[in-house]
């Protein structure tokens, strides 16, 4: 749930992407049938490809879901009747894939500790710890090596610095042999009774060969030979040993035992933790942390308050300016109206993230255009003072947002009946009275849903915040990289991907769910109010 939303679309319903037939013609016409066959054929071909791939990688759950979906699509479009389903199916499928699935996945992540240090499964973590813990014995020589094969087992044939050839396998400690062949540098390459692998064969058995570990003597403490490239091997001893039965790692030098702490890490009794951990379920901990961790609690509340402030003030200011300009430019006798209107919507034509960057430069206290040219060299810290940065963000968002409000208000104004205006004037109402008592309520009926959408958009207005201030200036007294102008979505982004305290997808997902609940609640409440407004007008 951390994707960035696009500009709010005016809520005109878009017809479903794929339609089974051409406009106005029944599915029985020739063109309709042809279109149906072609579209369904393409869909099925893609589905067959996907299913095949899924079957190959043994993803059976996803395979089952995809198969059912494909069958359902075919059933919907091949049967007679059921027209609503034919229109709704594409939309519903996209909704499931891009919204419902994402939400379910976010919710799942919110209950885990997925993030830096808890990146994968426990098996992966154990493998990785073993890999890193296997250390080359200091000052041990490097051995020119050949990989030999006998009865399906692999052996390493090495030549010691003294020129002695030694052979060993997984079950067979290294022992001296007499080589049957030697390479150009004098290193042993073959032994009677064993086959020497060439490079292509090595590649085919990479996994077995790179995991082959040959004890150098009968005493396992002496270490074992391993090769990473099939031509050179080194003596390694493990720094940590894994005991599969006890599920613990033991430090071979100090004897410290690291055991599974149930939270995705191996921890010693003194609290030291092995580098690599794994992903586990942590229940409600992420939600709890958001409101109890002293590092997070204070900043989070401040951020929530500012998010509401930012969203409400952004809607209010852009709407006020947009409406004012719309009314001003709605005068029938104004000359050059078109020209002005085009000028008005220019800010809307720039991508928001670009504008954010440009404004960030303009507002540089010393070299920025605003301070330098407009304010005569005043050193106003537009983006680095906690209060002023909030003002700057609101101003830039006003600049970015009013054209949209101007557009929708102009549209709504033009659809208002002229006669109401006239009747009110006949009754002796002044311009202000007409505006507040008649025009504004009428406008709000059609504009209220857009204002709610605009609120939801600004609530998650990532671009402006991130490009202009990056959320700064930072709060004191927290270890998180959160600042005065951070809104919830930028805070979620920073926790999920940002610098500071490492990525924490679990916590970020928990906060994303919090955002979802807030936006859903506010929208539901507002739509209810709008309903009342509509009833009032009827």
């Amino acid at each position, binding site marked *: 749930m951390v994707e960035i939303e696009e500009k709010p679309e005016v809520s005109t319903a878009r017809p479903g992407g794929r339609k089974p037939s051409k406009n106005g013609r029944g599915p029985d016409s020739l063109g309709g049938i042809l279109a149906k066959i072609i579209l369904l054929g393409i869909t099925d071909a893609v589905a067959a490809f996907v299913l095949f791939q899924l079957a190959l990688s043994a993803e059976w759950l996803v395979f089952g879901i995809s198969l059912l979906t494909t069958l359902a699509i075919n059933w919907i479009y091949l049967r007679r009747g059921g027209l609503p389903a034919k229109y709704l199916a594409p939309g519903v499928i996209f909704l499931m894939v891009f919204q419902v699935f994402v939400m379910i996945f976010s919710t799942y992540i919110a209950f885990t500790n997925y993030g830096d240090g808890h*990146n994968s499964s426990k098996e992966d973590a154990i493998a990785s710890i073993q*890999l890193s813990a296997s250390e080359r014995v200091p000052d041990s020589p490097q051995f020119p090596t050949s990989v030999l094969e006998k009865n399906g087992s692999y052996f390493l044939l090495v030549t010691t610095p003294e020129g002695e050839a030694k052979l060993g396998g997984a079950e067979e400690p290294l022992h001296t042999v007499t080589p049957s*062949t030697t390479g150009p*540098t004098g290193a042993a390459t073959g032994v009677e009774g064993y086959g020497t692998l060439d*490079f*292509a064969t090595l590649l085919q058995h*990479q996994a077995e060969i790179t995991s082959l570990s040959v004890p150098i003597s009968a005493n396992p403490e002496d270490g074992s030979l391993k090769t990473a*490239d099939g031509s050179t091997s080194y003596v390694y001893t493990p720094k940590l040993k894994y005991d599969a039965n006890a599920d613990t790692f033991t430090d071979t030098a100090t004897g410290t035992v690291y055991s599974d702490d149930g939270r995705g890490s191996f921890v010693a009794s003194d609290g030291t933790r092995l580098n*690599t951990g794994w992903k586990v379920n942590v229940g409600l901990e992420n939600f709890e942390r958001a409101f109890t961790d002293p590092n997070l609690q204070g900043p989070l509340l401040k951020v929530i308050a500012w998010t509401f402030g930012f969203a409400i003030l952004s809607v209010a200011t852009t709407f006020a300016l947009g409406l004012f300009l719309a009314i001003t430019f709605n005068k029938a006798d104004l000359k050059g109206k078109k020209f002005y209107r085009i000028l008005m919507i220019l800010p809307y034509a720039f991508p928001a993230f670009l504008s954010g960057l440009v404004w960030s430069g303009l507002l540089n206290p*010393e070299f920025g255009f605003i301070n330098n040219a407009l304010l005569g060299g005043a050193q106003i810290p537009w983006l680095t003072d906690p209060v002023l940065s909030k003002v700057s963000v609101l101003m830039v968002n006003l600049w970015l947002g009013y054209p949209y409000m101007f557009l929708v208000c102009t549209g709504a104004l033009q659809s208002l009946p002229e006669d109401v205006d006239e009747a009110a004037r006949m009754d002796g109402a002044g311009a202000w009275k007409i505006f507040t008592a008649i025009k504004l309520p009428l406008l709000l009926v059609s504009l209220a849903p857009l204002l709610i959408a605009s609120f939801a958009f600004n609530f998650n207005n990532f671009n402006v915040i991130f490009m202009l201030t990056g959320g700064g200036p930072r709060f004191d007294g927290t270890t998180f990289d959160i600042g005065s102008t951070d809104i919830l979505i930028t805070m979620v982004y920073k926790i999920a991907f940002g610098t500071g305290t490492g990525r924490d997808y679990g916590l970020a997902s928990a906060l994303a769910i919090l955002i979802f609940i807030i936006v859903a609640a506010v929208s539901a409440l507002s739509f209810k109010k709008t309903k009342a407004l509509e009833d009032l007008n009827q």
Partner: protein
Amino acid sequence: MTGITTPGARLTRRTFTLGAVGALSALALTACGGSGTPAASSSPAATAAATSAPATGTSLTMWVDAERSPALKNIVAKFKAEKGIDVKLVVKDFAAVRDDFITQAPTGKGPDVLVGPHDWLGKLVQNGVVAPVQLGDKAKDFAESSIKAVTYDGQTYAVPYAIENVALIRNTKLAPEAKTTLDEVLAEGKKVVAAGDAKFPFLVGLDPKQADPYHLYPLQTSMGAPVFAQNADGSYDASQLTLGNEGGKKFAQLLTDLGDKGSKVLNSNITGDIAKEKFLAGESPYFLTGPWNVPDIAAKGIKFAVDPLPTAGDKPAQPFIGVNGFFISAKSTNALAANEFVVNYLSQPEAQDELFKVGGRPPALTASFEKAASDPVVKAFGEIGANGVPMPAVPAMDAVWADWGGTELNLIKGKEADPAAAWTKMAANIEKKIAGSK
């Protein structure tokens, strides 16, 4: 030091000879390490021209950024010819590589090999996605500092190929003589400004929101305040933060003295881009920056020299060095092929030479560096880097940067009445975070 051309552009007789010697010695070394079987031989130069290996059906995927991709084409072709293994170079947005790799490696869909700076290591190891790389005797062929940088918790994880660090770039027209201490540099800079030849005595790019602990680090180390204590083997001990020691407090005072309320030498509104623009315009005699700005300075026709970093205290000014290297995925299903490519091919002088030609950073391989050092700029950067310390790779660094930068910013802006106390508070905060992130 006049008439400097772009790094690597000149191929004099001397560089050629050096190159040939370097190639031969490397050849001898690799041949010693190789086994006898002709197919598995790791002395590729000998067989390169003669035969080309049959295709093995194995292929490696490597994530690389757009700039380095062309430089790897030759070595990839050579690897294909000798070993029959295809290396698919996937060009990725550099900024996204680390996190994408961490996310994708556990699914088994990540690359086998990737290119990145060494300070990713802490994160990569923490998430269990990189495999150790055993360089064996080849480690001796690389600059010691670069091997130290790619070593984490006693294990080597990458084959290094380039070292980068900052240096003091001097406009030789404005300031003809090299100075060694910060006081001398600033005095010289102010003299030039007073004479009306420049506007800024000294330039360093800062971030208006975060200052820049990386660029300012040499000044800090010269006052005896490295970020972490170092173990005997040169690795960092992240449990011992030395940032907040007496030297650090003095450094805090220095930042305030040079900041907005003091001599205004450091200005947090001068971003890296603005600093570069001003230096290119000839408005300052000094610019503390890295090799990434050198091509533009040379292209502008400014006569410049690369000086050692000025000291502000009695210790050497050690910059952070960043080492770029090649990592192998812990989840690679082609571990043997990946090791062969990374350890035995990418460590060859010709691979490192090519990478130097596009990047202009001093190569990590000594033989390649010696060739590249015919360019005085590369030589100077390399010598300063040899004196540097690797940027710490511990995951705790993430927590350190933010506080460090924020406090430096406040000091430069003169917002802290008691610089030493602010610095101590920062150190305490960072210690708390490091403890919390464990």
